[in-house]
């Protein structure tokens, strides 16, 4: 910390530091050369909040690989941008709205979706797909059904109205999220690679324009709330929740894209967390400029709003633009057409200062650059996560495989999430080639032949047991899911959801996950182009499972050459690619059947991941397989059951080739880097040969056909019954709500 300045002794600090620490407050005084007034302090407080400054995570985030031949824009802008050829770019990002969604699930989730869509269209991209990664508490917790219902309705309510298909995501349940659910929303947009819009302000004298909805007293201090722990009385913080207006955002989207087609915009930034404060400070600081705003010109919908309230409001559906002066009228005409507010509220200056006035009186006057560059950075102490002892499969009670399968396929984490995605319009825009329910959604780009594959993944129980391995696995599984439909994985966005960073064991989880992700991203050529950090996900001192959600985007050069998991053809051979060692530590089998959440997560061999994935992608692209599915939660038998249910076709699974692997490990082990493919019988020999020379373990493990799933030893279960179990849980659970 910098030294104290005169006039900033502890005694003179105001009682309410608005979430800043005493040291941070003193630093603000040093920067100002005087005590900041209330508005200025509010600005310091939000700019230096965890949410805006990344003060606890910055030192670690820097370690992630962010560059690559296709990366046009990595982290640091509103969203990441990746070149996909033919003059096109894909723009995407994921963002959390955890705390607001716990307090008011519908509006919290809805405005989360609205916020992430703004991040993407701010960059000049039209959103073409949304995903959402959701984590709820135990199904037995009384609050859970209400939260599930509200969050899902809110995500649908916003995305459906925007006309953007919601095509994928995840839903998990675990008691660690009882008091702190996770709502992570991802948007993927398509832009002209040569026409990406950035937030760097330029041109002294250029007008600063406010467009969109009016400002109210919504969500003041939302950014600091996102950076604070929950306690039982958090529900008292209710008025900070914002209400979303997807209709206005739809108009804002169309108006912005229409304006972007002209040559009017110098810079653009959405007003998200910390609203006008962060947008104006970030834009001017990136341009090395000052900015003057007349706050009385800001369109407001409530009377007598103070400068403090206007600067800190988190009203939704607003944007800040720097325009070329000569383009004002043209721009105004577009926003008039869309019936949105358009107000010139200030100009860029060369003073390097943020100067706010209200009816001619100065409300704040502070240097811009130190707000960003002197924001606190903490290298917080870390404590490693203790390693767990391996699980000996032979120590587990014997169960009937069919019984275990019944239980697994109907357990909350594996049960079908149809009840969720049917509330999302996943078909609008007419390009959804693979709907929710597979390994990755496939979206055609325009009339094709190109397409994108999209998926989000994380296995928090792995991350809790071994953060480094868990971080690695999350990236690897995401890469595998895109590969399983035949796509080339291009890049990821992440959403790091963790507990209180001031606790060394939490920081240890964070650091470990980042290190694992780093290794996986490097090994798989899979850079991180955008992301979001959400810390303090705790209630009464108990943290959530560490949850680094990974959102991945892959490219299909020709959507006709892709695969889905549904079995399609009787008499096909089932070929298992990748090695099976029967790893049961942290497996769903162990948790759901033996009731134990123990052991190390499966090892991740990144070289094998890559080798096996590249081989599978090659097979898919040459049309060699009729179905493909990656193996993850629940292992081989669950994967096969999912393929059978999707294709409404039975299959027979053989016993493991070697006698060493215990049956539970063979059927339910969660060894990584594996895929199960179906292919015509006459090709299986050739493909096995090719796998061998490519260094990919491969074996025929069964064949397709019939209406039942038959296990080694002859036990069988009908596919129809499996589907009933798999489809039944969530609707029944929510129906009883």
């Amino acid at each position, binding site marked *: 910390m910098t030294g104290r300045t005169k006039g900033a002794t502890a005694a003179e600090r105001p009682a309410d530091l608005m979430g800043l620490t005493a040291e941070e407050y003193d630093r603000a005084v040093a920067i100002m050369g005087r005590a900041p007034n209330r508005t200025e302090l509010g600005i310091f407080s939000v700019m230096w909040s965890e949410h805006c400054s990344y003060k606890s995570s910055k030192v670690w985030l820097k370690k992630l690989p962010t560059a690559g031949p296709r990366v046009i824009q990595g982290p640091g802008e509103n969203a990441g941008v990746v070149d996909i050829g033919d003059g096109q770019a894909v723009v995407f990002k994921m963002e959390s709205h955890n705390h607001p969604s716990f307090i008011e699930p519908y509006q919290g989730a809805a405005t989360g979706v609205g916020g992430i869509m703004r991040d993407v269209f701010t960059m000049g991209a039209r959103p073409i797909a949304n995903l959402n990664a959701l984590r709820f508490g135990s199904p037995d917790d009384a609050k859970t059904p209400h939260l599930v219902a509200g969050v899902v309705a809110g995500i649908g309510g916003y995305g459906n109205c925007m006309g953007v298909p919601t095509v994928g995501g995840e839903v998990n349940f675990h008691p660690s999220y009882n008091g702190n659910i996770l709502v992570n929303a991802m948007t993927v947009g398509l832009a002209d690679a040569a026409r990406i819009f950035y937030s760097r302000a330029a041109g002294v004298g250029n007008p600063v324009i406010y467009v969109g*909805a009016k400002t109210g007293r919504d969500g003041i201090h939302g950014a600091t709330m996102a950076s604070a722990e929950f306690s039982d009385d958090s529900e008292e913080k209710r*008025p900070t*929740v914002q209400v979303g207006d997807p209709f*206005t955002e739809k108009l804002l989207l169309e108006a912005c894209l229409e304006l972007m087609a002209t040559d009017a915009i110098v810079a653009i930034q959405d007003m998200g967390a910390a609203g006008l404060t962060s947008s104006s400070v970030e834009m001017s600081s990136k341009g090395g400029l000052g900015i003057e705003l007349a706050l009385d010109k800001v369109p407001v*919908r409530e009377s007598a709003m103070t400068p403090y309230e206007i600067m800190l409001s988190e009203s939704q559906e607003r944007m800040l633009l720097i325009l070329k002066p000569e383009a004002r009228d043209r721009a105004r005409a577009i926003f008039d057409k869309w019936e949105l507010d358009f107000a010139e509220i200030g100009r860029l200056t060369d003073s390097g200062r943020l100067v706010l006035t209200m009816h001619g009186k100065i409300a704040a006057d502070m240097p811009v650059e130190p707000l960003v560059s002197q924001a606190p950075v903490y290298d917080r102490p870390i404590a490693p996560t203790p390693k767990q002892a391996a699980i000996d499969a032979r120590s587990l009670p014997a169960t009937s495989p069919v019984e275990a399968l019944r239980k697994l396929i109907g357990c909350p984490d594996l049960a079908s999430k149809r009840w969720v995605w049917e509330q999302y319009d996943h078909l609008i825009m007419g390009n959804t080639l693979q709907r929710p329910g597979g390994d990755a959604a496939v979206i055609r780009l325009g009339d094709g032949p190109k397409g994108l594959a999209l998926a989000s993944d994380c296995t928090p129980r792995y991350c809790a047991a071994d953060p480094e391995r868990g971080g690695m696995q999350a990236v690897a599984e995401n890469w595998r899911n895109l590969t399983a439909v035949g796509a080339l994985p291009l890049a990821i966005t992440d959403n790091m959801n963790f507990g209180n960073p001031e606790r060394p064991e939490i920081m240890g989880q964070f650091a470990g996950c980042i290190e694992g992700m780093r290794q996986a991203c490097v090994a798989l050529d899979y850079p991180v182009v955008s992301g979001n950090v959400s810390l303090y996900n705790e209630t009464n001192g108990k943290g959530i499972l560490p949850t680094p959600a990974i959102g991945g985007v892959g490219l299909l050069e020709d959507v006709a050459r892709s695969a889905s998991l549904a079995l399609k053809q009787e008499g096909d051979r089932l070929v298992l690619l990748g090695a099976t060692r029967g790893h049961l530590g942290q497996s769903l089998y162990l948790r759901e059947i033996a009731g134990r959440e123990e052991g190390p997560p499966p090892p991740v061999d990144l070289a094998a991941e890559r080798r096996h994935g590249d081989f599978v992608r090659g097979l898919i692209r040459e049309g060699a397989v009729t179905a493909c599915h990656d193996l993850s939660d629940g292992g081989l038998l669950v994967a096969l059951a999912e393929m059978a249910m999707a294709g409404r076709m039975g299959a027979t699974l053989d016993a493991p080739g070697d006698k060493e692997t215990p049956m539970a490990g063979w059927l339910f082990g969660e060894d990584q880097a594996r895929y199960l493919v179906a292919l015509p019988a006459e090709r299986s020999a050739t493909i096995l040969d090719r796998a061998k020379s490519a260094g990919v373990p491969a074996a025929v493990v069964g064949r397709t056909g019939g209406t039942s799933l038959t296990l080694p030893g002859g036990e069988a279960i009908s596919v129809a019954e499996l589907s009933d179990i798999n489809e039944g849980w969530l609707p029944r659970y929510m129906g009883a709500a």
Partner: protein
Amino acid sequence: MKAKVHVTLKSGVLDPQGRAIQHALGVMGFDGVKDVRQGKFIEIELEETDRAKARANLDAMCQKLLANTVIENYAIDIAD
């Protein structure tokens, strides 16, 4: 026993519905509409015959289900 419950947005909370209605009325030629707020009106018929008990019950219903007290107020009106 019959009761009427009004659920309204707290003041200051954005009311997109009200705004859209106000705008539409203007376009349709209704001048001088200064503000529109939209809320819910719920009519409930109860078996309960004791007014005090009914009110306590209705209050609990509002708290738990009928109103979203994060953003909404409610008012209970029990008919005679």
